[in-house]
């Protein structure tokens, strides 16, 4: 698994707090049995009118094309547990999000697919957003080792759950291999713990 120490790229601010996963990926695009192609529906109803014409939205703004980092507000990814939302972000070419805070399930889903979510203090985030809006070519670096976000000669301390930070640095953000290692203990718990419909559970 890939070790993720630093991510450098241009950024695009998507303003607003508590942007829910229904907005990130509307439910009708979840009628799929794979995650392929979800990237093109990212923020669909925010970006396109019902007749398909593009609306003013940072992701439709040519100045931000090719950005790899999303700048978001607080409680990003609230609502539905759909992994389709972070999958759409990943498949639209983004590698990381910088925000004020993230909803729990979204954060877990994103981390497990190697999509890095880090937090900045509100003031620091605002300065970063203003800098990027003034100059969309600004290169932003998320440095997980140094725990900082650097851009345009500035530096701000980032926050991220330590378990997630270490998982990225050590290349074990997908937990499946680790979980599989505990098989003997799992076997014991499966025998011991209550199971619906299984006689002798209690």
């Amino acid at each position, binding site marked *: 698994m890939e070790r993720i120490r630093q991510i450098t790229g241009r950024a695009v601010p998507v303003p607003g707090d508590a942007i829910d996963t229904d907005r990130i990926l509307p*439910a009708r695009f*979840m009628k799929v049995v794979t995650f392929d192609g979800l990237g093109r529906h990212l923020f669909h109803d925010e970006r396109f009118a019902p007749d398909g014409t593009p609306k003013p939205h940072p992701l439709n703004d040519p100045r931000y094309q090719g950005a790899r980092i999303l700048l978001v507000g607080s409680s990003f990814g609230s609502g539905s547990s759909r992994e389709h939302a972070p999958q759409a972000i990943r498949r639209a070419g983004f590698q990381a999000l910088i925000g004020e*805070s993230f909803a729990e399930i979204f954060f877990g889903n994103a981390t497990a697919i190697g999509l890095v979510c880090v937090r900045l203090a509100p003031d620091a985030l605002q300065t970063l957003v203003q800098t990027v809006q003034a100059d969309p070519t600004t290169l932003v670096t998320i440095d997980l080792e140094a725990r900082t976000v650097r851009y345009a000669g500035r530096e701000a301390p980032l926050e991220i759950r330590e*378990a997630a930070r270490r998982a990225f640095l050590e290349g074990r953000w997908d937990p499946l291999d680790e*979980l599989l290692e*505990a098989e003997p203990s799992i076997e014991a*718990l*499966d025998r011991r713990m*209550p199971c619906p419909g299984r006689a002798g559970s*209690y």
Partner: protein
Amino acid sequence: MAGPKSLYEKVWEAHTVRTLPGGLTQLFIDLHLIHEVTSPQAFGMLRERGLRVRCPHRTFATVDHIVPTHRRTEPFEDPLADAMIQEIRKNTRDFGIPLFDLTSGRQGIVHVVGPEQGLTHPGMTIACGDSHTSTHGAFGAIAFGIGTTQVRDVLATQTLAVPKLKVRRINVNGRLAPGVYAKDVILHIIRTLGVKGGIGYAYEYGGEVIERFSMEERMTVCNMSIEGGARIGYVNPDEKTFAYLKGRPYAPKGAEWDRAVAYWRALASDPGCPYDDVVEIQAEEIAPTVTWGLNPGQAISIEEKIPHPEDLPPEARPAAWEALRHMKLEPGRPIQGTPIDVAFIGSCTNARVSDFREVAKHLKGHRVKPGVRAIAVPGSERVAQQCEEEGIAEVFREAGFEWRGAGCSLCLAMNPDKLEGDQLCASSSNRNFKGRQGSPTGRTVLMSPVMVAAAAVTGVISDAREVFGLA
């Protein structure tokens, strides 16, 4: 660790496989519920790696999200929906997982079906690829929503890598006034603590109101914990919990039942156990509550006026302006009297038999206002059947409601039930997000089922206490 413990602490300890190198807990999952929308990719990942389903006996499937509620005969009109149903049939067949399929008599919304089949027990850890898994916490289970990669993890290992949460005790004290329901209680809690107030917490609900609540009312409260940012909400198990479970298909039987009850009783939070936070809510302060905005925390009592964004804290203002623009509502005006286009009673929050019973009691003799489309969607086939047997469905039909088959329906609009254009829907569901009910410009106002019925018969957002003479 000695000393009094919360239920969360006890269940967590009993299910801990180990602490992972990064500091997360590897937690054993007693019950894994799956449905057609968030599972196919997980099975795909399993096949890619040549893995088996670790505990098919702990995995149960149903279909709910994309199931049409109007014409349920197959093939469905929507080939994408059809493909998803075929996919879960194939996956559950290949891996030996029981499926509550259409017309099995057991199909329905996963969070309605789990409790009614007796799959949900106190003290269990329960996971499901759906954020409203918190519903099962009503039984004193630690139940939470997960993403598809985590569905894969549970399928492959019956465990998850998860962070331990803090616990906030929420006491709802006193007595609710007539016409105030569990839905109003949870909307009031979310309004009070905020939509991100629960991030990092499990909510333990208690106090006289919660204790007096039926299991179904407790499910309504726990269901919307996620709307307050808490991934988990639970109520300590008590005699009502045991009475609800007794005799259900997957509940323990005979002598084992007695052992189970003794075990469940001991799981409740110990008196004097430490909490990370305690919040007191007074029941007398809760009135029928409705949302005016784009998240469930943007709520007011039916007696209040729509807030002016400039009266809110500075950080809440941009979202409030955006909400009012989308909802086409004017600040400073009463929310009562706002015309509605659609009335929806259903969803995992409010589609249990008690919800329809309560509404039928008041709806009898009333007619849905011409021009309003009123839809009633039972949460499960069993609920639908009970409503037929008790004459409830007939009351709804006579009043002018469309009485539908079981499914998620207009809560998230993955089936043909959708809002059109900027229609305004009085809804008993759980989310008023922009576009949630199928139209990017559609508008959702959340409220209790009885309030939805009041809106349906008057054609405007109304105080059900006045419409139905509840005193």
